[in-house]
């Protein structure tokens, strides 16, 4: 086993364990903090895959913005942080079936995949992933349309949020 594999296994176990804690802990703020740990584990996985840009964006967007927003929302809406009610609702079996089906589907899909035992190719010298991503996101024959549509969607969501929250006197 190489060092990289050991690091990957440790990070993957950490991510899965903290993801498990997110859904099982009763304290909502703890759940949000475990979510931060999970997202951080995903960021480390990106880093292991040499996707530095994605790793840092993961930390900036998911930890810096979304997780903080979650914590704010939990603190501002809940009177008592400890949830006393049941942790499952009546539809738990639908969720369980869906989860099992997704797992089985992914398992069969990945079983036939030959890339599992392949070693990653070395990155050529002078390869700049950030430039590649930037070119891909702005060139017309790559992803400029999805990129722009996502931006318009976000602006629309922003305007909508302001409209809903606006207090007309």
């Amino acid at each position, binding site marked *: 086993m190489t*060092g990289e594999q050991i690091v990957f296994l440790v990070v993957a176990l950490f991510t899965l364990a903290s993801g498990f804690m997110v859904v099982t802990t009763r304290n909502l*703020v*703890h759940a949000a*903090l475990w979510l*931060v740990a999970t997202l951080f584990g995903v960021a480390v996985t990106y880093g292991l895959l040499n996707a*530095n*840009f994605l790793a*840092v*964006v993961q*930390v*900036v967007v998911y*930890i*810096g*913005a979304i*997780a*903080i927003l979650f*914590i*704010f929302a939990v*603190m501002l809406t809940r009177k008592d942080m400890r949830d006393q009610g049941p942790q499952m609702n009546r539809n738990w079996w639908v969720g369980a079936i869906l989860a099992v089906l997704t797992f089985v589907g992914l398992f069969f899909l990945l079983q036939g995949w030959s890339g599992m035992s392949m070693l990653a190719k070395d990155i050529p010298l002078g390869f*700049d*992933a*950030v430039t590649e991503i930037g070119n891909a996101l702005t060139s017309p024959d790559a992803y400029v349309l999805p990129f722009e549509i996502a931006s318009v969607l976000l602006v629309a969501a922003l305007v909508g949020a302001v409209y809903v929250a606006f207090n007309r006197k």
Partner: protein
Amino acid sequence: MSFLNDPLKVAADWLLGIFTGWGMPVTAALILIGFLGVLLLISLLMVLDIFLVWVERKVVARFQDRLGPNRVGPWGLIQPFADIIKLIIKEDTTPGGADKVVYNLAPMLSMMSVLILWAVVPLAPTMLGVDLNIGVLYIIAAGAIGALSIIMAGWSSNNKFALIGAFRQVAVMVSFEVPMLTMLLIPTIFAGSMGMGAITESQDVWFFFLAPLAAVIFLIAAIAELGRAPFDMAEGESELVSGYNIEYSGMKFGMFYAGELLHAFTFGGFWAILFFGGYRFFGLEKVSPFLAIATILFKAFVGYFIIMWIKYTLLRIRIDHMLAFNWKFLTPLAFTLLMVTALMNALLAGTPTWLYVSLMFLSNVVVAWIALEIARTYSRREREKVEGSKAGSLVEIEAAHQ
């Protein structure tokens, strides 16, 4: 390659020789050497941090027409060590009802969010932790961890003042991140790279002369990110006692305090790297890497002094004014400036340097002037509205009396 030209590489090679001589595999030796390098950098930073306590206290004393620490050692130089001994032997208290794990984790995360910033600081041409090609984004990511540590401290303390302080501070940090990130993109446009090393290397002309407005906006956003006056909402000692760190005692408080000082110094350094050429000073950095380190430390200290100067001169701004200032003035201004700079950069490609620099400078001045003119008109109108309504209400009161 002699020690004076590239000290780190020589030291690393020497250590590698020793470790492999002991029969250690090369990869393990390299990991150990990397670890030792990190340890060396962090130890030096912590020693610098101790010194910063003295600098901060001495400078604030001068600003307030006092002497500052002057009893322990020459010019009070040993005072910070006395402070540290005091902090260490203080009772370590944990408030009742506190969330112990989160409560103890917060000061560590706070210090960590500052220390990891130094991974991307280029100290000399050959001394750079990691030349990340996304160094600029990395700064924002570290800031996100800092925000997280503050909200953890505020929540886990089980104290209303701490929680309010944390809310305010995180609201400010999240808001001012927007103009800050936008301004970080301007050196990126000039250098054509987000890496700190490349940004430093491409500053034949300091980026301050290309984009003075960007440097000013970055400084304002950085001060807000640091939570220093006039943006010290989190502390707000007259209203919140001490904000998010109110319940912390001893060295845990010391971690927050030392983290804040080092953070301010670090942002002085980033200001120097992004807009004032980093370790470069008229070819001095090519003479010796030690001179390069001295240059960047000097520039960082100048930036730190300016941050202190602002802190001890201005009064605290009210939180709603601060957020309105950010969202209604700074953010649109930053976006406009980014668009103007990108457009000018594309239009001026291939022009001689003196023309490029002067036109860039001019475009910044024009944008700043228009923004100030709009702000002035707006504030005049608001003032007239307020004064008009006051005058009107006075007339009404008089009419009611008669």
